[in-house]
């Protein structure tokens, strides 16, 4: 090739590695070489280590705590109890859900493994040894484990601190163990729809207590500089700016003197949004000792004390006509929050966005109510790879639709096609108050059905059922269909805030004189690949190669204020901030280009990586040239420099959707379920990096598989947490994980600057009902209507036994 041949438009586009490119993850260069920089990698001179003394009981009064033996251990620097924190008013802390939570047990313990004392020593092993020597005398109290018994008249009083309080952060309380009641929808119209219904179904669908269980547990290092009066807090924070604000409010240290840094994070999945006692105790310990203090949770502590998810018990009713048109939806949820309401939802949403429960279907009317209750279990529940209870809602409606199809004698896919919100109905106003921005559900489900050979699968299933009845096989087959609509991108300031802070997000981009750039965001990747994808957005928007753009997050001193990464909000909110900041830069670049080209700025146009004179494509200035000029040859009247900040308040949520189909073979003699095939079609709008999307889908489906087929944080009747280790808590390995088939359609969000909708959580949201529907579908021909999750082998076997197999 002649060296002088100018690159083609396609070559110039490829060089940018912008949106749509399967760009390799830049962060993996360090992760795959063991060169990530995580909290526990941090070692500061003189650093001390904290360890907790935790409750042996689910519910007990603390009669005494004797720390003298622990304090006598050489190397122990301090042992903190509630009595030490009380003068600072830090023995309790506010939760994101408007409740308060004990930092260290104040008079009683309310769940097993609750934090009682914080031992600080100059060595991690000494801290653990000393923690063993703290003597706690308990008086056992009657435990409350079953949420269905929480509001019985004689139920034990859990929260003595709330005595006499007849209302909480979300309205009236009906009982001493009641937290809130949240209702939405038209109760009368819904009751009427049920009164007049030709067909109704009703089923109590439980979504068991599970845990996000990221690879890296929660941890922090707090370092207080007494001379400067400044606190630096490194931690596993999905939302570092929120942590800074909360720390300022709690500690009284001015916010500008608090530096919160989230380094590399090994997975969050909602586990790392909230504030935990370990953080507060580390900060106090650092202030008290004047030394940096590190706290690192172990696996059992992570699974049993910080941030469970779900524990939603959803009584679900659907009304329909005989020919399968839905006419009403009525759901009552009993929500078990454990000992403290420590949800990490937007503040005004005690049940998150559960009112997305009408799903993908055109319900003329609906009503839902949620009662939150306290029990003697760990506090939560957080949004585990979930946009605030949308996982629960999707499970509820998708199981409900299958149960309705069974009652009507209809195919579950056919029932869905019959009731979908139609393409022309968007933007669609749901009966429970959301405005769905866009969708094309029929195309997606039909594409999925065609790809998996749906009709043939149903024929095979029928033949297998007949063979089973004839005694020729002990294997049955299920086909699970799920069509989910997500609601992500929290959120518009008109309805979303956390502790009063609107849920915008932000981006700051600086283009350096040589055309390289740094971009900083208010979000924080925990493995999502922001350093890769964010640069791709900027590359396409501004026309500089993604490889020349460094993306930085997690340092509150340098990053613009943002609300962090959870609820699939990074692309919908920060992604939009990136595009709008980039467009500000582009607008200035256009002025500079026009000046350099000596034409009016209306006479130049953007072309991949440059501005060119309209009609004279050979007359152009590249972004690299413009960047240089921005620092030494700006048009008169224009400031030098090329940078921009954008704070983006989204006008609406985004509504990704997808069609998932699972084919499951079940050995009825053992209850072992084998996923033969799993097809996942995702529509997340504009696709920034298809490879990262596929990775997200693979990861989310693997979590969904784990939840549906085995995960459970169970408690025995006296409040002992069972299975809080990876021996029992089901984390599938590569051996158990099925093969995933991914597919997509593209329906861009009409209100998002680049049309993107977010994808991280979709596979967890849609996956769980697909697996559960497959198991339930397999047993339907034997008269089954619903088997509760998790579908581990013994429960599936038991279900089969009940059906007489």
């Amino acid at each position, binding site marked *: 090739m002649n060296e002088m041949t100018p690159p083609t438009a396609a070559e110039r586009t490829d060089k940018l590695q912008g949106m749509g490119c399967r760009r390799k993850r830049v962060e993996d260069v360090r992760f795959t070489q063991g060169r990530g920089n995580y909290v526990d990698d941090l070692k500061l001179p003189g650093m001390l280590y904290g360890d907790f003394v935790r409750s042996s009981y689910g519910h007990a009064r603390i009669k005494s705590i004797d720390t003298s033996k622990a304090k006598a251990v050489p190397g122990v620097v301090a042992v903190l109890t509630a009595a030490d924190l009380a003068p600072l008013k830090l023995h309790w802390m506010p939760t994101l859900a408007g409740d308060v939570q004990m930092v260290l047990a104040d008079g009683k313990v309310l769940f097993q493994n609750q934090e009682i004392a914080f031992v600080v020593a100059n060595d991690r092993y000494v801290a653990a040894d000393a923690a063993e020597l703290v003597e706690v005398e308990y008086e056992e109290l009657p435990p409350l484990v079953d949420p269905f018994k929480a509001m019985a008249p004689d139920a034990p009083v859990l929260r003595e601190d709330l005595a006499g309080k007849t209302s909480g952060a979300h309205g009236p309380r009906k009982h001493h163990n009641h937290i809130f009641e949240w209702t939405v929808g038209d109760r009368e119209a819904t009751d009427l729809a049920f009164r007049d219904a030709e067909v109704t179904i009703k089923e109590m669908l439980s979504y068991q207590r599970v845990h996000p269980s990221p690879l890296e547990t929660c941890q922090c290092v707090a370092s207080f500089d007494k001379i400067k009066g400044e606190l630096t807090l490194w931690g596993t924070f999905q939302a570092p700016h929120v942590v800074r604000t909360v720390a300022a409010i709690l500690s009284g240290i001015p916010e500008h003197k608090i530096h919160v840094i989230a380094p590399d994070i090994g997975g969050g999945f909602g586990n790392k949004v909230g504030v935990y006692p370990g953080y507060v105790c580390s900060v106090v310990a650092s202030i008290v000792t004047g030394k940096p203090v590190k706290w690192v949770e172990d696996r059992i502590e992570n699974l049993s004390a910080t941030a469970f998810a779900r524990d939603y018990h959803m009584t679900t009713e659907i009304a329909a006509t005989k020919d399968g048109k839905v006419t009403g939806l009525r759901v009552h949820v009993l929500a078990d929050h454990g000992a403290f309401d420590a949800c990490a939802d937007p503040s005004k949403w005690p049940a998150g966005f559960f009112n997305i429960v009408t799903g993908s279907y055109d319900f003329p009317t609906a009503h839902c109510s949620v009662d939150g209750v306290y029990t003697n279990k760990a506090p939560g529940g957080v949004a585990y790879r979930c946009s605030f209870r949308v996982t629960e809602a999707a499970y509820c409606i998708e199981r409900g639709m299958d149960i309705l199809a069974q009652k009507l004698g209809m195919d579950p896919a056919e029932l869905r096609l019959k009731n979908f919100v139609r393409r022309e109905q968007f933007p669609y106003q749901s009966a429970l108050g959301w405005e769905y921005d866009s969708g094309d559900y029929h195309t997606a489900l039909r594409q999925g059905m065609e790809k998996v050979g749906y009709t043939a699968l149903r024929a095979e299933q029928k033949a297998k059922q007949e063979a089973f009845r004839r005694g020729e096989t002990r294997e049955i087959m299920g086909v699970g269909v799920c069509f989910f609509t997500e609601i992500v991108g929290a959120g518009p300031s008109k309805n979303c805030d956390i502790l009063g802070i609107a849920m915008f997000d932000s981006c700051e981009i600086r283009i350096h004189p040589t055309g390289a750039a740094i971009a900083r965001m208010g979000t924080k990747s925990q493995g999502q690949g922001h350093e890769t994808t964010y640069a791709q957005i900027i590359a396409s928007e501004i026309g500089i190669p993604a490889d020349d753009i460094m993306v930085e997050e997690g340092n509150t001193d340098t990053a613009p204020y943002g609300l962090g990464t959870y609820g699939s909000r990074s692309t919908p909110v920060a992604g939009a901030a990136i595009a709008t900041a980039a467009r500000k830069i582009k607008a200035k670049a256009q002025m500079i280009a026009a000046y350099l080209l000596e034409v009016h700025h209306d006479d130049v146009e953007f072309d991949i990586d440059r501005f060119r004179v309209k009609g004279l494509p050979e007359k152009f200035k590249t972004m690299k040239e413009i960047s240089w000029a921005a620092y030494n040859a700006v048009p008169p009247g224009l400031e030098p420099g090329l940078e921009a900040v954008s704070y983006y308040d989204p006008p609406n949520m985004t509504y990704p959707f997808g069609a998932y189909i699972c084919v499951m073979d079940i050995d009825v003699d053992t209850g*072992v379920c084998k996923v033969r095939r799993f097809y996942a079609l995702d529509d997340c709008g504009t696709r920034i990096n298809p490879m990262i999307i596929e990775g997200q889908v693979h990861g989310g489906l693997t979590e969904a598989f784990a939840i549906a087929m085995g995960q459970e944080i169970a408690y025995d009747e006296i409040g002992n947490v069972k299975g809080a280790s990876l021996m029992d808590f089901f984390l599938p390995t590569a051996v158990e994980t099925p093969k995933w088939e991914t597919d997509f359609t593209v329906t861009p969000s009409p209100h998002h600057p680049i049309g993107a909708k977010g994808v991280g959580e979709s596979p967890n949201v849609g996956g769980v009902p697909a697996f559960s529907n497959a198991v339930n579908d397999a047993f339907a021909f034997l008269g089954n209507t619903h088997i509760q999750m998790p579908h581990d*082998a*013994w429960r599936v*076997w038991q279900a089969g036994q009940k059906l007489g197999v």
Partner: protein
Amino acid sequence: MIPGTFDYHRPKSVSEAVALLADLGEDARPLAGGHSLIPMMKLRLAVPRALVDLAAIADLRGVRRAGTDIVIGATTTIAELIASAELAVALPIIRETALVIADPQVRARGTIGGNVANGDPGNDLPALMQCLGASYQIAGHAGTREIAARAFYQGAYFTALAPGEVLTGIRIAPPPAGHGWAYEKLKRKVGDYATAAAALVLTMRGGQVASAAIGLTNVGDTPLFAEDAARILTGSALDKATVDRAVAAAEAITSPASDGRGPAEYRTKMAGVMLRRALVRAAARATH
């Protein structure tokens, strides 16, 4: 997840190890691969004052012939069992079982001696050793002795091993060439203990079972030697009625715990299902 304080010893010979254990008393524990003991220590469920690591005792490692018998040294790793050509020919059921123990990392360090001596009913090899009629060679301060695997297990984590004794080797008389074998294990995931498992060795003569031995894993406080079930099968052509009776006899001796793997009733039934499946595979493998 941080163990308490302990001393660490690394003897070079069995006699040195035994002497150390005698000196240190009941608070000392022998350490082999550490894949049972160290997790227990990290949970502080075990708090030995001293560990006597057997890893440096070369005599304890490896598979050798002793006449017609095979002797496996106590610190032979599970991975070494899998790799042994000798075992693959003479005792293929050991390889089949070893391949479903835990995961490759654990198998690389975990040892046969630790697996059988710890008395954990969840371990796979004890029931297999009962099935194979293995003997355990034991050294103590007073000398050496040998005890049948079928007489070794007394309760969960309770065995015939006295304080201060070390299991040094396992002696097995291989079943005749042409025997059938199978180890069937139901588990929740890689790395898990069995929900239930069955070890089976049988020989066939003229289409009938000439001999059978059955061990059951993790469906009682100890590994279970299903003697009645094996007797029922002997002499039969493995017809359905006989198999049903044998399975019922095997199920009858189980008393599993209810845990995350399932309620007791389920685990008992799974022991039966595993035996049934082992029978099908073992019979197909038997060449006489």
